[in-house]
């Protein structure tokens, strides 16, 4: 479980995160939605330690990450898998080498054990036999799945996904979404997904957090987001007439 308590983050005069608090539960897909510039990516970078918060606490299983030494942070980071918006695969390495990279760096596994794990992870994301391809030879959807395979190679306790559907067609988005959902339950991970994709909200969101102007504006389930009368959420989620009509239909269903 990850708990965020009253964190603030500013860049000069720009106050991006304002007294932000949230709980992200284990074994659940925790979705963060919000408009562009609302502070979603900054918040994720603060949680994983790529940015320092101005004040407040970030607790991993009760341990305060923001006051940890570099060595302690490194240990936590070995339990984190992250799927970046642009996949962030190492372009000089093959698919196999990308997935094997964390195993090589942090485990004492033999070459055969590592290969077995790589093949298992690639099989898990339906990319068996693509070991020798380079990232540049793979499609956007494949790159996302390779990044997921790399993220789960070390059997992480925490998974962060920064807009996993960006740049993907609807059917590939569903494949990636389902994969994230399945591996969250399979590995009992604390998964945090930043998304703009409303399909993801309905498909995989166990807990949903709406970030608005750097604040935790609303928290609830996918059933609750459909029924809510919160003006800001409705303006964001049901921006188009099509979505407004869909909301009415869904309201009747739930």
């Amino acid at each position: 479980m990850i708990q965020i308590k009253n964190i603030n983050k500013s860049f000069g005069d720009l106050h991006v995160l304002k007294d932000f608090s949230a709980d992200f539960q284990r074994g659940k897909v925790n979705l963060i939605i919000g408009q562009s510039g609302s502070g979603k990516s900054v918040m994720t970078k603060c949680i994983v330690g790529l940015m320092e918060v101005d004040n407040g606490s970030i607790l991993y299983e009760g341990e305060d990450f923001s006051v940890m030494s570099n060595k302690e942070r490194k240990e936590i980071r070995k339990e984190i898998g992250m799927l970046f918006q642009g996949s962030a695969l190492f372009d000089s390495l093959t698919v196999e080498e990308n997935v094997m990279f964390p195993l090589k760096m942090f485990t004492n596994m033999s070459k055969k054990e590592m290969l077995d794990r790589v093949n298992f992870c690639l099989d898990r994301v339906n990319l068996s036999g693509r070991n020798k391809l380079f990232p540049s030879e793979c499609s956007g959807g494949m790159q996302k799945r390779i990044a997921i395979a790399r993220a789960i190679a070390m059997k992480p306790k925490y998974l962060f996904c920064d807009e996993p559907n960006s740049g993907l067609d609807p059917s590939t988005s569903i494949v990636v979404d389902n994969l994230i959902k399945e591996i969250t339950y399979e590995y009992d991970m604390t998964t945090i997904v930043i998304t703009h994709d409303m399909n993801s909200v309905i498909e995989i969101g166990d807990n949903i957090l709406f970030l608005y102007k750097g604040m935790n504006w609303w928290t609830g389930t996918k059933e609750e987001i459909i029924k809510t009368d919160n003006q800001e959420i409705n303006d964001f989620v049901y921006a188009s007439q099509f979505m407004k009509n869909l909301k009415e239909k869904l309201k009747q269903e739930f």
Partner: protein
Amino acid sequence: MNYIHSIGKYFNMLRSVFARPERLKIYYTRTLTEIETIGLNSIGIVAILSVFMGAVISLQTASNMDSPFLPKYTIGYITRSSTILEFSPTIISLILAGKVGSNIASEIGTMKVTEQIDALEIMGVNSLSFLVLPKVIAAVFFFPFLIIISMGLSILGGYFALMSANLASHDEYIYGIRAFFEMGDIYYALTKTAFFAFIIVTVSSFFGYFTKGGALDVGKSSTQAVVWSSICILLMNFVLTQLLLF
């Protein structure tokens, strides 16, 4: 103020670069790869430049020797001395700052803007040490070899130029090359080269690592890396010459 901030940031970066590596075996493999990328792949350009550099030095020396009292072997002597003391270590290092420096800055800069460095950090890898240390070791170890090759080829270039223009005899040139030779000159040149190699890699990595933005900014970082590496080389050349020769 900005410059002081950048210098501080550079030395902070060096502290992370020389932090204890996570996996020595991986660093060893990466160092060998870097020797190939920034060392072996530079042999061609170094060879071409050195031959023509030596040829021009010897021709210019010959053309400026008007006095009949100056012996012809002086051409060989001046070609050797200027090549070993200055042209090979400094000029070739400046060329390498252009070739290797821009390569390093754009490689690391691209990794930065495509979040590959963030990915390394999230995994718990010291990205600076992982990316820069093997390059530093490879360059400091291999650049002196490049300079030795450059010295040899430069002197050879001078020989062929003189012979083809019939400006001195074979014996005169060889005698000049061997005259008043001091091994200390070679040590001086190689020491300078090792410092220059360190500057090229670390300064270029600095500009690459702190790139922000996109493709355009990677290009800017690459240019800045070459400009500042060259300036630092020239400054260090002056300091080292003072320290080592006087």
